[in-house]
């Protein structure tokens, strides 16, 4: 019945099939799960180190560089925070959609469209700086929401899977952005003197930028981080406490019950998908007004995909997205220090991907073990009694 339910990441720990007997067993299982986590992360890091060593690098100096670049000192930590900010914002929105049972994976494109609409306001609209900034961020959220609204609409109008249409729309979004940056009447930079005109937008004027707190040697971060954390807390509270959050979760956990209870999948689900798009778009606006300052054809630069990964690791938990996003941010900030060692910064992507696999493996593996044990017991029990439907 719950076919439309989306299983994200591994199944929840709590959904155990067999009660673990006694406190001792539970502690043992907890310990060995921790050991498994440590082992998996060790394997992931070991593989990365082996790759570095095999290509003639020094794993220890790579580690030192990544440590220096990400958490060694307040200045580096600032880089980590700035890298984590857009990932966090994307992830929070994604969590909302996943909770409602809709799997939007088009953040990469929604972010590009959000940055484009935000950039349009930031570059073309005159007026007092702070007002234009707020309008630009709002426009980026609206842009992302509209782009995510297309899969939502197709889902309820033609029954097309949100996953597929949001995936395909990423590549259309890239071309929309490219079109905007190739036409001077749209967003392409204005010619200055005789310089060549690139496929980029002009820089956002300094009045229309998000304030940055602190300066390099000390702790420093963009105010986008504040936006991200506030949004994470608000969303976490709303989902846990509000009527809207309750309907959202009901829809995600059991669409049939939700329909019987009068929860409109179109309203609640469609809104959830659009909210996830709005957050991705907002992340684009934040990157534009606090880090990049100008639009380029490759503006989204995997931020949407990485934010999606953060959400999937945080597993439907908006608050948990904060540490996961920080961790990803640290990896990226550390990775930017690798170029000093003549080691390709692509190592960051490798480490990041291996760590994701290492983090999803243990819970999934435990769940599989518990599930198999449960089946074995059920089958053994059924063999003793009359033939019964086993396991449905």
């Amino acid at each position, binding site marked *: 019945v719950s076919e439309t339910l989306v299983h994200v990441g591994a199944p929840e720990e709590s959904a155990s099939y067999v009660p673990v007997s006694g406190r001792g067993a539970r502690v043992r299982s907890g310990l060995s799960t921790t050991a498994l986590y440590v082992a998996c992360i060790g394997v992931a890091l070991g593989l990365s180190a082996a790759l570095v060593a095999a290509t003639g690098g020094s794993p220890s100096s790579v580690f030192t560089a990544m440590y220096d670049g990400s958490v060694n000192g307040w200045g580096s930590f600032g880089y980590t925070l700035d890298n984590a900010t857009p990932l966090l914002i994307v992830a929070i929105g994604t969590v909302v959609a996943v909770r409602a049972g809709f799997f939007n994976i088009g953040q990469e494109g929604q972010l590009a469209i959000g940055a484009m609409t935000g950039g349009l306001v930031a570059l073309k609209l005159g007026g007092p700086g702070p007002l234009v900034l707020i309008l630009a961020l709002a426009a980026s959220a609206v842009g992302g929401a509209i782009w995510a609204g297309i899969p939502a609409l197709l889902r309820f109008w033609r029954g097309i899977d949100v996953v597929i249409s949001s*995936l395909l729309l990423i590549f259309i979004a890239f071309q929309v952005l490219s079109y905007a940056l190739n036409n001077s009447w749209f967003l392409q930079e204005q010619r200055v003197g005789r310089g060549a005109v690139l496929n980029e937008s002009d820089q956002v004027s300094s009045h229309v930028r998000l304030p940055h707190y602190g300066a390099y040697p000390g702790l420093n971060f963009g105010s986008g981080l504040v936006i991200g954390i506030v949004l994470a807390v608000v969303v976490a509270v709303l989902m846990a406490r509000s009527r809207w959050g309750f309907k959202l979760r009901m829809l995600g956990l059991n669409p049939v019950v939700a329909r019987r209870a009068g929860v409109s999948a179109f309203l609640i689900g469609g809104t959830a998908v659009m909210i996830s798009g709005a957050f991705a778009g907002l992340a684009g606006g934040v990157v534009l007004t606090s880090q990049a300052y100008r639009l380029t054809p490759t503006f989204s630069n995997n931020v949407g995909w990485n934010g999606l990964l953060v959400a999937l690791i945080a597993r439907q938990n908006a608050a948990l997205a904060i540490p996961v996003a920080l961790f990803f941010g640290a990896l990226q900030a550390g990775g930017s220090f690798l170029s000093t060692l003549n080691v390709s910064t692509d190592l960051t992507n490798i480490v990041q991907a291996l760590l994701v696999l290492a983090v999803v493996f243990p819970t999934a593996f435990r769940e599989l073990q518990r599930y198999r044990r449960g089946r074995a017991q059920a089958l053994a029990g059924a063999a003793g009694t009359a033939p019964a439907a086993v396991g449905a």
Partner: protein
Amino acid sequence: MSHDITTILSSAIRLSVPLLFAAMGEYVAERAGTLNISVEAMMLSGAYAGILGSSVTGNAAFGLAWGMGIGVVIGLIHGNFTHRLQVNTFVVGVTLNVLALGITNYLFASPELPLTPRQASVLTVPVLSDIPIVGKPLFSERWPAFLLYGLIPVVWWIMQRSRWGLELRSVGENPKAADVTGIHVNRRRRQALVWCGLFAGLGGAYLSVGEVGTFNSNMTAGRGFIVIAAVIFGGWTLRGAVAGCLLFGGADALRLALPALGYKLNPQLLIAAPYLLAIVAMCFFAKRVRQPGALAQPFERGAS
């Protein structure tokens, strides 16, 4: 004029061949109910492994085999994570794409692995290639492209006539029913992913070893996603997937050829065309064409 048409057709076919190889894998995987966006990872690593293999062995054929091998490895990883450990297929897909992009870029930049690739030679079928207009595009290609003439019917036969193919389709259509009849749902899906890796890897290797003769950073540039779009555009039929690949290869060829011929058409529109057409196809053929019933839905015995 006919010379121009032949040129554009040649380029369209050439650009379609890697897509067609990968689509022969992705079609099977999607029919088995698994939507693996890691097909991009398979193609990209296949492209790199192909060049690496042909550099190490000095033989283009071995390069292609290396590409297929790495595709199988990725298929195995994806299959075991999604259809054994039940990790969400998009988590695994996104991760593998990031991993493949990282590793190929990293190794490509590494001075320890100098590449001296061999390119597959052009094979011209004597009489058939003299047919006006279509002869040259269809019968004068890098030799691995001719494998497609055999592969497409074989895939059709396997999916429509063999027991394995029937089981794959049933697993994609209604896994619960398939399970009840004794088919090991997740094993079939893992096998479908290995099959997908085999041919997506070959498609990637054809791109590098066959067509271009070298490797570039992020060489496939989203071709894996175009393949997914082609399978969707084709309404999950083999015929449709082949048509989709040819059409999308043609759009790419037009984009490259039109400026030279003096026509002006929005290049962005042509790049976006595959994805737009796939969405439009899903919208308008929704009644007639149906996706595999359990596409991208995990299956676990005993879980309702």
